[in-house]
């Protein structure tokens, strides 16, 4: 089965004109920093991330450091975050744009699907041998963000 090992959150400016660097989602970066320092985990088999818009997926990948700044789109195109890539697999569920985005329920959706992944029971694209999943949920353009570590037990 699956367990949620930790959930962390952070608030952010949520507005591109307020941030010094509009290409970093500060609340995602901070919530992820808190989660990894709490759990000591910084490698994941897959990530369910909040791609409410195409650009947010790229910025999330860069904000948590799995892609260098400005390189996420290139790495996605090369298949780095596909099941055959170097990983982690990004949005095996299809993500918000493909699976759907029922707003407040999206985070619950992501946690449920991440739990099915680490239990090896996801009916769609199953990441082989997935044991650790990272779930990232954002509000708006990052006025607050939640991240969760979901592990198989």
């Amino acid at each position: 089965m699956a367990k949620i090992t930790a959930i962390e959150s952070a608030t952010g400016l949520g507005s591109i004109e307020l941030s010094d660097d509009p290409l970093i989602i500060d609340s995602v970066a901070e919530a992820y920093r808190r989660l990894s320092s709490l759990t000591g985990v910084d490698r994941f088999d897959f990530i369910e991330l909040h791609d409410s818009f195409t650009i947010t997926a790229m910025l999330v990948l860069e904000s948590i450091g799995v892609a260098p700044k400005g390189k996420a789109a290139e790495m996605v195109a090369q298949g780095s975050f596909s099941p055959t890539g170097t990983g982690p697999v990004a949005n095996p569920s299809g993500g918000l744009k493909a699976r759907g985005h029922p707003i407040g329920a999206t985070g619950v959706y992501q946690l449920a699907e991440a739990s099915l992944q680490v239990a090896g029971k996801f009916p769609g694209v199953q990441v082989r041998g997935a044991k650790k999943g990272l779930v990232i949920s954002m509000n708006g353009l990052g006025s607050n963000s939640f991240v969760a570590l979901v592990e198989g037990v």
Partner: protein
Amino acid sequence: MSMELSIPKFWRFKHSIYRLQAARCRSCGRVHYPPKNACPYCGSRDLEPIELPKRGKLVSYTTVYAVPDGSRQYSPIYVGLIDLGLTKVVTELTDIADPSQLRKGVEMEAVLRKARVDRDAGLIYYVLKFRPAMGVPDVQA
């Protein structure tokens, strides 16, 4: 006859809309536009009005093709992030004959332009937009 926009609302915001009046935090010095009652950085409620410069440099922009009723004839419109030095603003860009001139760092200046026409009432709403600098800004700081 209904009106979608509110004249009193535009009146209340006239300083920020037409003069680019922002709020400067007396505690940490950060400047915020639109003006805030509390500083998003340090939480202080001690802010003072400050007028922003009407010239700045383009950081980035996007092209919007799905434009709402009342200004659909202007489609596509360009929305840009402009660094005015004291702070950055998100604003509509205008007088774009050729989008290739919208490069990072290009100098932009504020001009008074029509925003939209209220359908039934026929009221015209004006705002400040930014155009590539022509050397003589309509609005002086």
